């Protein structure tokens, strides 16, 4: 990590301190959701943007991370009340938030591996179908495994551990890991697979292994995001993680531009903030006495349509935006990549 990166990290940290002391609860929560969406979008980009697979599994992986971390962080006293049928050892357990989050991510990655082993050996968009199926399975399990998940009632009263620092920290870790992966032999192999899997194999790239790696790393961070989300909202139900969440993340990815990390960050930020503020606009505006409910959704749908028509490659078009270098340092390995996903 060089001086420039450290400088920008310090700058962001400072801004976050300001945000924490100046913004009210509502804005702080919106900001936390922005960071969670950055985690989701950047991690989905690894599969959908760099390897060129199309995963729709993010909601399922979030759900897994959220439920596991919830069961782990709930204090034994509340567990005794909420889930009396829980196995005794699990009922007694109380795991620190960080460990619970990581375990949630690991379980999501493990499930991704189980789904990926049969599917990722096949060419084509089987992954989209399989991950959609996974979402249904996860929801059915969450509804019916009442001893652990409390079924359709969901789990409420989660400790509100998630704050700006947790989501910011995990967003930084996600961006760092994905950025390191993409700018290494792994990333070259992943992009080569996206461009031409047969030719990549002919150059010695293990196509299945790289697709698997991207899918599992993506699922890990989706699980983390789920755990963070659960401990932010403090209540989860089987319906918290619906197809709508997957759809939103895909939209953020597409609007920002697939195959670009900075595009994902931009897409996640814009597509979280714009709908949130439009929601406030629609309650304050009125037409002939009727408040304009649903206006925000229409505006977003129109925006996406316009992006698809006029800028199919997304706002950044697969390019990376570089922040200005304030401290001169010899450039390690200049990158010259263009996007061909659009």
């Amino acid at each position, binding site marked *: *990590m060089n001086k420039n990166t450290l400088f920008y990290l310090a700058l962001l940290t400072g801004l976050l301190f300001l945000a924490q002391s100046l913004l009210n609860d509502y804005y702080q929560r919106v900001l936390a959701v922005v960071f969670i969406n950055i985690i989701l979008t950047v991690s989905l980009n690894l599969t959908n943007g760099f390897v060129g697979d199309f995963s729709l599994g993010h909601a399922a992986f979030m759900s897994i991370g959220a439920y596991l971390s919830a069961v782990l962080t709930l204090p034994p006293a509340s567990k005794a009340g909420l889930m009396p049928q829980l196995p005794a050892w699990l009922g007694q357990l109380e795991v620190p938030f960080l460990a619970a989050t990581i375990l949630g991510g690991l379980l999501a990655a493990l499930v991704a591996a189980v789904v990926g082993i049969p599917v990722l050996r096949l060419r084509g968009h089987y992954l989209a179908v399989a991950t959609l199926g996974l979402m249904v399975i996860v929801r059915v399990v969450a509804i019916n495994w009442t001893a652990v998940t409390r079924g359709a009632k969901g789990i409420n009263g989660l400790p509100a551990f998630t704050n700006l620092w947790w989501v910011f920290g995990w967003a930084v870790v996600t961006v*760092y*890991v994905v950025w*390191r*992966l993409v700018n*290494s*032999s*792994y990333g*070259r*192999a992943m*992009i*080569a697979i*996206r*461009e*031409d899997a*047969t*030719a*990549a*194999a*002919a*150059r*010695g*790239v*293990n*196509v299945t292994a790289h697709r698997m*790696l991207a899918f599992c790393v993506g699922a890990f961070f989706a699980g983390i995001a789920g755990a963070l989300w659960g401990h932010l909202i403090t209540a989860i139900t089987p319906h918290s993680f619906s197809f709508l969440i997957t759809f939103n993340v895909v939209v953020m990815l597409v609007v920002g531009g697939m*195959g670009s990390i900075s595009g994902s960050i931009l897409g996640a930020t814009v597509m979280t903030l714009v709908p949130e503020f439009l929601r406030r606009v629609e309650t304050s505006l009125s037409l002939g006495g009727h408040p304009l409910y649903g206006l925000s959704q229409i505006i977003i749908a129109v925006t996406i349509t316009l992006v698809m028509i006029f800028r199919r490659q997304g706002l950044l078009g*697969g390019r990376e935006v570089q922040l200005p270098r304030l401290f001169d340092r010899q450039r*390690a*390995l*200049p*990158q*010259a*990549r*263009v*996007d*061909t996903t659009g």
Partner: protein
Amino acid sequence: MSAVMAEKPFLLEAEGLAKAFKGLLAVHNYHVRVSKGEILGIIGPNGAGKTTVFNLITGVLPPTRGWIRFQGHNIVGRAPHEIARMGIARTFQNIRLFRALSVRENVMLGLQMHARAGLGETILSLPRFLERERRLADEAMHLLELFDLDHLWASPAQSLSFGHQRRLEIATALATRPSLLLLDEPAAGMNPSEKEELMGLIHHIHKEFDLTIIIIEHDMRVIMGICQRIQTLNYGEVIAEGTPAEIQANPRVIEAYLGHSQPMGTLLQRA
């Protein structure tokens, strides 16, 4: 001399190789034996099964029947990337580069199987990872210099001219450090002077990299100029095999190409 040759094991051997696509026999009872250091040409009319043979050897397609041995090991059923790692590299009839990657990254991709950092080292960006990346970049530049492409190293592969793309594809194949190189119509779309250049290049890398080469080509001047032995395929079968002189005089070859007997000299003039 011939006694010594006979004792030497073949680098590549295939026997009884067949490939059927839903009843259509693309390759039928194909056989080949290639000694180390040889340059073998494969010719034949369009649809004769030449590229299918390459796809069978490189594991892109599983054969319906038959076996293939490379350096004494059976390679039927192995994944394409395993076969590439064993030392078989190929180029494609329609150039297949990684368009979004830079020229140098295309070469580094071929090289990286030999010097790859682990996942942990990569994510933590440990010195060993950085050193390996630098070494890969250096080696890639050396290879690019040899192909006179080093000045273009930072350009995306898709921005290169056709001739440069052909050269780059051969460079990326060599980056895997193969002992056997399969070239699929490398002269396609080239003008006469580019073809001359290509022949020089193939001769050069053959010696420099200690290669064995199998080349599919329609251009008779190129084939006759660089191959020591030529196989002719028609309807997925080997119909003739021999030295360039023998092939040129073989009536079955001439018939396969032109539909009726005509001296090979006409073919050479057309090319």
